[in-house]
């Protein structure tokens, strides 16, 4: 006998939230601390260094600016995908969700060109402390982009079957994956000035 998982849609009486919502926020809290530790490491390394290069003397600011635009745009398409489900417009959801995944691809392709140019010029994580923290922070962020794309791709494709049987549950899933995606965007909003411009 199938026992349904409780509180996937209905709110728990004790938290006032469904389980997915509270779970994703707790996960994001742990992510804040993960990136927080690395930002603290960055501050420690920077104030402890005798010299520290300005990011724009080593890194490609125009490409990073384009990537910022791409990621912010993907946040909008993500929230529009969720809003489309709220309007019962599944076709629009598919369109906006696909655009979100494509934007993730574009971000990674631009990052690939950035990394390739650095490696081509012999600028490696082992070259200096600035590049070490740059590759660590942007590499970890890139892994989060890949993770977000995998979830969003799943919800666009095979995971979308849930819409037919339980649309509200599916909408909640899209909202939760969106929360993760917006967090990835939020981290980049801080990485961009810290690494590239200062």
């Amino acid at each position, binding site marked *: 006998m199938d026992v349904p998982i409780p509180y996937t849609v209905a709110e728990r009486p004790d*938290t006032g939230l469904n389980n997915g919502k509270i779970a994703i926020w707790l996960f994001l809290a742990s992510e804040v601390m993960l990136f927080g530790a690395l930002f*603290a490491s960055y501050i420690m390394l920077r104030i402890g260094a005798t010299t520290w290069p300005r990011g724009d003397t080593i890194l490609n600011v125009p490409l990073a600016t384009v990537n910022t635009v791409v990621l912010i745009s993907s946040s909008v398409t993500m929230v529009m995908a969720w809003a489309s489900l709220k309007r019962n417009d599944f076709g629009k959801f598919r369109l906006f969700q696909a655009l979100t995944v494509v934007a993730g691809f574009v971000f990674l392709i631009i990052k690939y060109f950035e990394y390739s140019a650095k490696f081509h010029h012999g600028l490696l994580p082992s070259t200096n402390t600035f590049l070490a923290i740059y590759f660590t922070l942007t590499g970890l962020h890139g892994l989060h982009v890949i993770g977000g794309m995998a979830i969003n791709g799943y919800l666009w494709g095979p995971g979308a079957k849930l819409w037919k049987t339980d649309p509200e549950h599916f909408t909640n899933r899209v909202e939760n994956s969106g929360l993760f995606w917006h967090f990835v965007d939020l981290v980049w909003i801080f990485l961009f000035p810290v690494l590239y*411009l200062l």
Partner: protein
Amino acid sequence: MGDHADIDRQVKTYIVIFITLMALTFVTVAISRIHLPTPAAIGLALAVASVKGGLVAGYFMHLISERKLIWWVLWFTISCFVAVLLLPVVTHLDPIQN
């Protein structure tokens, strides 16, 4: 689920936030081009980034209409986050080490 008129209003807000975020991105780049002293440049760039982050969290992540429990989780997390960020500064100002 919210009604369609409510969602339509939210969508308009998302578009306004999107345009604001784009404008602030170019403000961030412009600030770096005017070569302010490093502390001022860091302060301004992080202030703009904080406004952008607040807009994403508040509107795209719906924090402005979120339950109190989520806010409590976040306040606790942000307190720990700020403490972690201050650790290097405190270490740097340590008179014994210096």
